[in-house]
């Protein structure tokens, strides 16, 4: 065939070549520098600029930081120490303020001997989270997850143990009503009853019962007022309760937004868009200034609680959007399979759709939480003592008036550590989910 040309085609390699080392300029540090730092003129310039920038920043910040004074009781003492050891023109941070006030920045006015309680509450939170994050764990742990909000509430606020118990009982009652009424009276009536009965119970029975029980068997922890919460503890409480409490509402809104029912759909959309369209700080001022107008005359509850309510409403709109994403990511076949097995709407949501959609949404929820956690700093504008609020209060004491950077650096670093690790975690989850999802 190919005898039309003279070249001989046949070739068979007799001996295999061993792999060789690449030429020197392709190896080691030389290659790394060449490829990573100076691969072109533009890159070389950028490298030089970057190195200069880093040097500039470090040379200005490092002495201040390294000269930091940790042991003093007031700013003026700091200055004396600095003048004595380094000379009056030296740059030196006065970290003594942190040594002096770290408890307040972290825990606010929380009683010092009770610090174990918020810490334990945080641990409880992670334990509660475990079965959600690691499907391998026994399902029974979900009971603890359900109970954990009450446990955390009890740990942080203290008081009689009966309060949380009787409130939790309301949910159990609601569930029982639903359970027994649904087969008899149909889902809609049962649902309404399951909402109304607990409300009546809370309104008329729970408070009384809790007081009675507290009188009979006084078990409880020292009560801590909301206004004693502050610093990072407050940020975490607002952020976490915002996310946890907004889950049910967020899920309902997401379902509402997916719904075919015109009215429900439009109400959900309207709520979500309104909340998302207005800055959180405006909502916080709303909580502070005008929430009282909307409640029956005479109702007052403290500002921390009002903020939590507002933040819950706020984050529920964001959660709704995240969950909607999760719902939309589920293949239609899942809905159909559930229908075909004869599951009704709520059952298929609860057993089939939501468990999957929520799992997909976890990274989004974590990201929402990070955003919310950062945004809790805005409560400073309505007079709550979050870390930034506390930094102002600390500056208002005669000892530390005039101190500035050290507090902000401390707060910034703490926020960074917290948010960055959460962010990494959500990234990890996202990758893991992407791998699992086909």
């Amino acid at each position: 065939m190919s005898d039309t040309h003279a070249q001989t085609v046949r070739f068979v390699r007799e001996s295999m070549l061993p792999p060789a080392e690449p030429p020197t300029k392709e190896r080691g540090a030389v290659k790394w520098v060449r490829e990573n730092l100076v691969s072109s003129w533009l890159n070389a310039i950028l490298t030089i600029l970057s190195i200069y920038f880093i040097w500039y920043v470090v040379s200005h910040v490092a002495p201040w930081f390294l000269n930091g004074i940790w042991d003093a009781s007031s700013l003026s003492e700091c200055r004396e120490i600095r003048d004595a050891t380094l000379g009056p023109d030296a740059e030196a941070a006065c970290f003594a303020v942190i040594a002096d006030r770290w408890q307040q920045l972290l825990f606010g006015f929380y009683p010092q001997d009770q610090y174990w309680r918020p810490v334990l509450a945080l641990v409880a939170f992670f334990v509660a989270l475990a079965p959600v994050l690691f499907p391998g764990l026994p399902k029974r742990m979900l009971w603890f997850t359900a109970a954990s909000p009450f446990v955390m509430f009890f740990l942080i606020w203290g008081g009689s143990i009966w309060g949380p118990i009787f409130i939790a009982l309301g949910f159990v009652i609601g569930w029982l009503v639903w359970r027994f009424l649904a087969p008899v009276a149909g889902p809609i009536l049962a649902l309404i009853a399951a909402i109304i009965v607990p409300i009546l119970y809370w309104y008329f029975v729970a408070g009384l019962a809790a007081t009675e029980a507290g009188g009979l068997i006084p078990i409880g922890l020292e009560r801590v007022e909301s206004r004693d919460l502050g610093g990072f503890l407050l940020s975490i409480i607002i952020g976490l309760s915002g996310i946890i409490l907004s889950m049910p509402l967020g899920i309902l809104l997401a379902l509402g937004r997916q719904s075919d029912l015109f009215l429900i759909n439009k109400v959900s959309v309207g709520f979500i868009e309104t909340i998302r369209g207005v800055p959180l700080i405006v909502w916080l001022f709303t909580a502070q200034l005008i929430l009282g107008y909307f409640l029956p005359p005479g109702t007052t509850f403290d500002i921390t609680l009002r903020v939590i309510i507002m933040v819950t409403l706020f984050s529920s709109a964001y959660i709704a959007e995240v969950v909607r994403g999760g719902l939309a990511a589920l293949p239609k076949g899942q809905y159909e399979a559930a229908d075909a097995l004869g599951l009704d709407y709520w059952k298929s949501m609860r057993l089939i759709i939501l468990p999957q959609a929520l799992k997909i949404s976890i990274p989004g929820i974590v990201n929402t939480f990070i955003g919310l956690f950062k945004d809790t700093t805005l409560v400073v504008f309505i007079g709550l003592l979050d870390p930034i609020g506390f930094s102002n209060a600390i500056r208002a004491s005669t000892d530390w008036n005039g101190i500035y950077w050290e507090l902000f650096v401390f707060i910034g670093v703490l926020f960074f550590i917290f948010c960055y690790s959460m962010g990494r975690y959500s990234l990890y989850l996202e990758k893991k989910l992407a791998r699992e999802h086909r």
Partner: protein
Amino acid sequence: ATLDDVRERGTLNCGVTTGLVGFAAPNANGEWEGFDVGICRAVAAAVLGDPQAVNFVPTTGQTRFTALASGEIDLLARNTTWTFSRDVDLKFEFVGVNYYDGQGFMVPRALGVTSAKDLDGATVCIQTGTTTELNLADFFRVNNISYEPVPIETNAEAQQQYLAGACDVYTTDASGLAATRATFENPGDHVILPEIISKEPLGPLVRHGDNEWGDIARWTLNALIAAEEYGVTSANVEELAAGTNNPEINRLLGTEGELGAMFRLENDWAQNAIMAVGNYGELFEQNIGESTPIGLARGLNAQWTEGGLLYAPPFR
């Protein structure tokens, strides 16, 4: 009524600032301290017999009135200027004046300015959400000179801006100026100008409509002032309560007459208040007086007998 609420609760909810040197700030143990705080404690001592039975609610310039109006706090003891519209339009009741203040200016000595009228074209740092900005606008308008306002949310920031030279002048109440200057690294480099451009009678206030509660707050403040006038101090109050030959003191301390019962308090209400925080003069000296770093002189806040404006109506 507020009194019943407070008794039932067992604590007094008292609004203070989120932090103002000398007037209210938490210390390292988380206890609030300061001149305004003293008023709260005095009222708590008078009503409940316990100066520690106070919940301090930090408020900002923006949030303080709503907090009071909504009932979140029973008493607002935060440097709040008594003005007509606040009293009448916003429906609050000022129970008296605990500090006669006035808005002043502080400038760096290096500028060589000696009068506020020389400030044409100056950049002025002000704290927002107070009457300060309105006074300032009026002052410059009246004198037909121009200025550039730099509104700042907190004292700490205003201080930082002023020290860095981002504004030529820092204006707030004269007490605040003094307190701020006291903590500067070189206080001598700054002068407070002689002009006081406004009257700033600062006083505690309560909701309109509950006269009994308003009376309690008013007379607690008056008791502190009167105590100074009569030489009753926290040190000798117990001794004097045993009975003196000054009927006025006796009435004040409840050893004579039934003043306390008239507004449903114990008869030793004033004694408790004075024991808790001292008389007005003690409170002043402890928190903002000349012996403290803040170093305010009594000035207008001296007793009327010493040329000041403090004048407690008679206890009878």
